[in-house]
Every structure is written in C-alpha cells, then in structure tokens.
C-alpha cells in the first residue's frame, strides 16, 4: 500500500516513465515513417530538475538549439517543449531534402529556408503528438494540441517563458529524456512536459495513483 510520500513519488515516477516509454515508442515509429529510415529509441528516463539547472541539463544556457513548442489543453493543460541540437536538426533536414540547410553560417531561424523550417516543425508535431497520444491512451484523458511553434536560439532563452509557467507552481521541471537514433546517430533530443498543477493531479487521478 501507498503510505509514504516517498512511495507516492516513486509510483508517480513509474507512471510518468510508462508514458515516456509509450510516447518514445510512438515517436520512433512515426519518425521512421517520416524519414524513411530505421529509428531506434534509447531507454527513456524521467528527470526532476530544479529550475535553475534546467538549461544546463538540456545542453547549456547559451548553447544554440532548435526548440519546438506545442501548447496543450483539455483535461491536461500545459506545454510540450522539445530541444534539438543544431546538428541533429541539420541532419533531419538533410535526411529529407538530401542537402544541408541553406544558410549554414547563420545561428538563428534564418539558418533554415521556409520549407526546411516547416519540416522541422513537422518533426515537433510528430514527436509531441506521439507523447500526447501516449498520455491520452494511458490515462483516458482528452488532450488537444496547438500547432507547433519553432524557435532557434540559446537554450536558456527558449525555455525561459515555459520555465516561468513552471515557476508559478513550483521550483522543479519534469524532463523526459528519450533519444531517437538512426544507426549510431542521435536525431532527437530532450523533451520537457510542463503540465500545470491541476493537470498533474488529473493525470495521477486517472491512473489511480492519488
């Protein structure tokens, strides 16, 4: 029986790990179809990270990355953020178009043409969508997702608005670490799920944890 808060935390973590597992599996399958290649997933992990440490865990506050953001609402509301290293995003562009991005010397969104940016948005859509479906299937909760938004900038800066949202309810972020690989190449990075407090409770209630 659940009788201590430590136990509850372990059980919560297990539940989130399971969502992460299903989500990463779905994402690997969907990305394999999108890229026409075999995609493997790493063993997913769920990390609880203090806000001040978030940027470091995601790769470094001033390191430039490609970030995707999806707003979610319904029974669960919050945000999905996915952080991809520039090199990974470039590889995805190459896998689809057969060529390197148009402005390889630029380190902002201008690095990518409209078409390249939209295909990177599509990967955000696919990966976040896989997680949303996983969460929804696992919990039976209804979740709607916004269109994907893309931003190329320093990791600290792209996560700061979502860190503010987390900061309203607590001092820790949940980070889903699940990497997708094509052969030995890593093609996708870390994902942050940012449910608000009410949504967290909804998820836990729906699977009978609280």
């Amino acid at each position, binding site marked *: 029986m659940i009788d201590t808060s430590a136990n509850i935390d372990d059980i919560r973590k297990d539940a989130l790990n399971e969502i992460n597992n299903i989500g990463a599996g779905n994402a690997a399958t969907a990305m394999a179809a999108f890229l026409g290649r075999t995609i493997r997933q790493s063993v997913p992990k769920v990390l609880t990270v203090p*806000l*001040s*440490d*978030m*940027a*470091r865990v995601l790769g*470094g*506050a*001033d390191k*430039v990355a490609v*970030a995707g*953001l999806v*707003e979610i609402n319904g029974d669960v509301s919050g*945000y999905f953020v996915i952080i991809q290293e520039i090199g990974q995003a470039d590889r995805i562009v190459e896998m689809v178009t057969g060529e390197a991005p148009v402005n390889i010397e*630029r*380190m*902002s969104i*201008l690095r990518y043409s409209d078409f390249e940016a939209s295909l990177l948005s599509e990967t955000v859509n696919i990966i976040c969508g896989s997680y949303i479906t996983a969460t929804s299937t696992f919990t039976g909760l209804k979740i709607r997702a*916004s269109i994907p*938004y*893309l*931003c*190329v*900038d*320093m*990791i*600290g*800066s*792209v*996560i*700061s*608005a*979502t*860190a*503010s*949202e987390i*900061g*309203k309810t607590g*001092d820790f972020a949940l980070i889903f670490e699940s990497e997708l690989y094509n052969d030995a190449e890593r093609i996708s990075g870390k994902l942050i799920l940012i449910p608000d407090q009410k949504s967290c409770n909804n998820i836990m209630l729906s699977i009978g944890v609280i």
Partner: protein
Amino acid sequence: MIKTFLSVDIAMMKIAKPPDQLCSLGLGSCVGVAVYDPVAKIGGLIHILLPSIKELGPGHSRTKFADSGISDLVDAIIKAGASKPRLKAKMAGGATMFSVSSNSPIATIGKRNVESCRETLACLGIELVAEDTGGNSGRTIYFDIETGSLRIKAVDKPEKII
C-alpha cells in the same frame, strides 16, 4: 587580478566586487537586472522569472520575482556597503521567443516582467540608466562592476554595450 565570471542562473541573485563580473546566459523572457554603486564599486545581478510574488503568494522563493527579488537585491547590496542614493540600474531581457497566439500566457510574460522591473525600480527610487529589452532574441549578458557597463550578446547580431 584574475577576473572571474559568476553565473547567475534562473531565479538567483549574486553580489560581487571587481575584478569579478556577473553574467546571465541565455535570457529569453527572463530579465537580468543589474544594480550597482559606481563609487563603492559593488554590484549585483538578479535573473527574474516572473513579474510579481503577489500573484502567487507565500511559499515561493523571493528571487524568482521582479518585485520581491529586486527589493532583496537592493537590501543585500546596501548591506555589502553600497549607498542607496548612489545606486543605479541597468537591465536586459524580456523577449518573446515563440510567436504563440496572443492570449497565451507565454506570449506576454517577457513584457510583463520588464514592466514589473521598471515599476519596482521606480518604487525603490533607483534610476534605471539603460535597458535593452523586448524583441524576439535571446540575450547573454555580462556585467562589469568596475565600469558599470552591461555587455549584451545575441545570436547572429553584433555585440551591444549599454
């Protein structure tokens, strides 16, 4: 003397004296507020996440917010030997990184942070001598306490000093 850069992460504040410099890496909607005494050469930097502690109530760390955080920073600088009438402030940050729909809270957070920082500084009677805020790019800032200059780096843009 060896110059050390002290990094001020999300919801943190630090106080230092030359030759040490203070920096915040990758500010987005967050705001970095530097407060300093140009005569005593004491300076502090805070990395603000949210506008006001009043919206959320107790139980939160005070340095997350513009109102409570800046006020604590000023107290700490005075305690370290600065004189309140000589204090000046500079700030940078408050960008909007994602072009989300305008009714989303993350669309306006940068702007609200900047406004609250301005109001708090005005309330405390501290002159805001320069700022580089808003826009759609992240910023990394380095604050040189010796000269009071704030160096701002953004990707794909020339460096700026205010």
